[in-house]
């Protein structure tokens, strides 16, 4: 049985992905900042799906612990999925450097740090899959997603590059760009129903895209076209818009 490492396993999407892979008979390694929150998720997965599941403490911004974190995983995961991210109120972040820095450090620097390590391991082994969750918000910078969007833009570019770098060593890198998702992060936002997916839908789509070795996927498919349109609005026009 193959093993999946899930970084950010206490998030709604993280839990849904863990369950999806466990239901397909993968062993699961859960990693999150608050490891005590993983206890119930671990027992749930083991009992429901009869697979092995372990829990690990992982903090995205404690970069110097990442090497030993990965070294301590036994067995090493065949698939590494990075889901964690931070989203603060953009206006607050604009005013407070600490929040800005935190978003960049979690969403970009933290992911790069851990995925560099995973990628080195996989290229050495000539086998492995990395799945990174970015966002449609990274496709074009907008006022309403100033810091969050730019951190995700950097992440998307990193994942593109990583895919390019690892391809020759038989390591597959998949970029996932969700649009609106019903999660704790968004529960107080009035999201348009037709454009919004549930964490379970996200997990299903990621799993089948992983199976067919897709490169970049949008959840749901029409986000690709929505973002294509947004990307193609001329800048002289775009800068005047409220987006």
């Amino acid at each position: 049985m193959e093993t999946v490492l899930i970084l950010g396993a206490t998030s709604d999407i993280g839990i849904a992905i863990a369950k999806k892979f466990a239901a397909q008979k993968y062993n699961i390694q859960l990693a999150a900042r608050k490891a005590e929150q993983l206890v119930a998720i671990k027992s749930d997965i083991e009992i429901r799906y009869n697979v092995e599941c372990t829990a690990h403490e992982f903090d995205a911004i404690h970069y110097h612990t990442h090497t030993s974190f990965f070294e301590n995983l036994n067995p090493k995961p065949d698939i590494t999925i990075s889901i964690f991210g931070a989203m603060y109120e953009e206006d607050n972040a604009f005013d407070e450097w600490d929040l800005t820095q935190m978003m960049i450090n979690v969403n970009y620097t933290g992911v790069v740090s851990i995925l560099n390590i995973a990628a080195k391991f996989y290229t050495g082994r000539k086998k492995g899959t990395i799945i990174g969750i970015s966002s449609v918000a990274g496709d074009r910078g907008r006022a309403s997603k100033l810091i969050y969007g730019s951190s995700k833009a950097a992440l998307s570019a990193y994942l593109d590059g990583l895919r390019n770098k690892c391809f020759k060593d038989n390591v597959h890198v998949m970029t996932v760009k969700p649009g609106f998702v019903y999660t704790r992060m968004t529960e107080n936002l009035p999201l348009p129903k037709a454009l919004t997916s549930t964490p379970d839908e996200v997990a299903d789509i990621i799993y089948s895209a992983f199976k067919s070795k897709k490169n970049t996927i949008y959840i749901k498919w029409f986000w690709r076209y929505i973002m294509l349109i947004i990307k193609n609005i001329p800048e002289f026009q775009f800068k005047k818009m409220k987006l």
Partner: protein
Amino acid sequence: MKTKIANWGNYPVIESKEERFVFADQLDTLIKDQQPFIARGNGRCYGDASLSARTISTLKFDKVLSFNADAGFFECQSGITLDQILAVIVPKGWFLPVTPGTKFITIGGALASDVHGKNHHVDGSISNHVIEFDMVLASDEVVTCSPVNNSELFEATCGGMGLTGVITRVKFRLKKIETSLIRQKQVKAANLQELIELFDTYKDYTYSVAWIDCLKKGAHFGRSILILGEHATIAEVNENQRSNPLALPVNKQIVFPINMPGWVLNKFTVKAFNFLYYAKNLKKEINNIVSYEPFFYPLDKVLHWNRLYGKKGFVQYQFVLPLNARQGLVEIMNRISDEGLGSFLAVLKVFGKQESMISFPKEGYTLALDFPIRKGLLDFLDELDELVLKYNGRLYMSKDARMKPQMLTGGYPELEKFKSIIKRYNPDGKIRSVQSDRLLLTEIK
């Protein structure tokens, strides 16, 4: 953000801010907030018991914590549904000790209503099988309750409609099964008298329930089908079934797509339904082996069947009368039949003995009927209430959306004790529902 919510009967509909939690510390934060709230499971109670201007949904708090497949103990968070529990336990040879007529309820909701099943006369209600549970009080203190530990709080919580606190973890005993199949017997009764006799003849069956056609008058008054069942043993099933005796049923669900206009559900459709159901079972007696799903959950196959009653919604009226009040049963059914107020579903069951503070079941006959909301209905039900009280009966709070406070007082002799416990653990009425305000269980501020 407030949205419109309603429970299974689609009546009443209210505006509510629904919040949820995945981890215990998030619940803690929600409870510390001063705004009054009520816990909400899957909204399968019919009326307003889990409705409030602020609801705390348990549905994301749904993890399995432990399962001892040798001894049959199961421990889980409160928001898991029976459906999900069955998927884990049935393949290992275990079953729920008690299950209501739908598997789409949470274990927290099951306890707060102290649900009963077709086996009440032999196994009691769900609280009889609970080893312990954890609950967070209005003060955000966590307590563990069991029949011996904090026993008063345990009793007031079982059937207490969420008013004592939020149940977070439940540990309970399971029932051993050899197969996932049911050995079913269906017996036709020509009238109520015959049905009551049949209940008596077959009282040793673990599971029993009857579907009654309440619109038939005269000699066929109370024409019905008694449905009996036992968990089938390996020896009782055929070779094919024996190869995978604990198989989970294959789910083929039909979704009822839209709210039906009110006129569809008139007297004729009800009559037609009852007739069809009856005719399908033409023989006096049918014996067969069926999967547990159609046996326990015949309605779950049609997801959202509640839409059949239209936009205005419906109420379910479920009462219990003591065994010696059979005359009351006849009188009430006569009143319904005279009124011509169709009930799509009339389900009769005999309860066994039960001593409890606020749970619904007590020894006697319990009848559950659906009434689509229409003019004059609420007055008519008030009239029925008087009959129920006259015969020493009471109503099921979990199905209620409209009774008056005196109806509750009349039916539950230990109500004052229950109220005093609520006062102690929920002194400022921080935990409250539309129902608890209506029934004066919490003081309206």
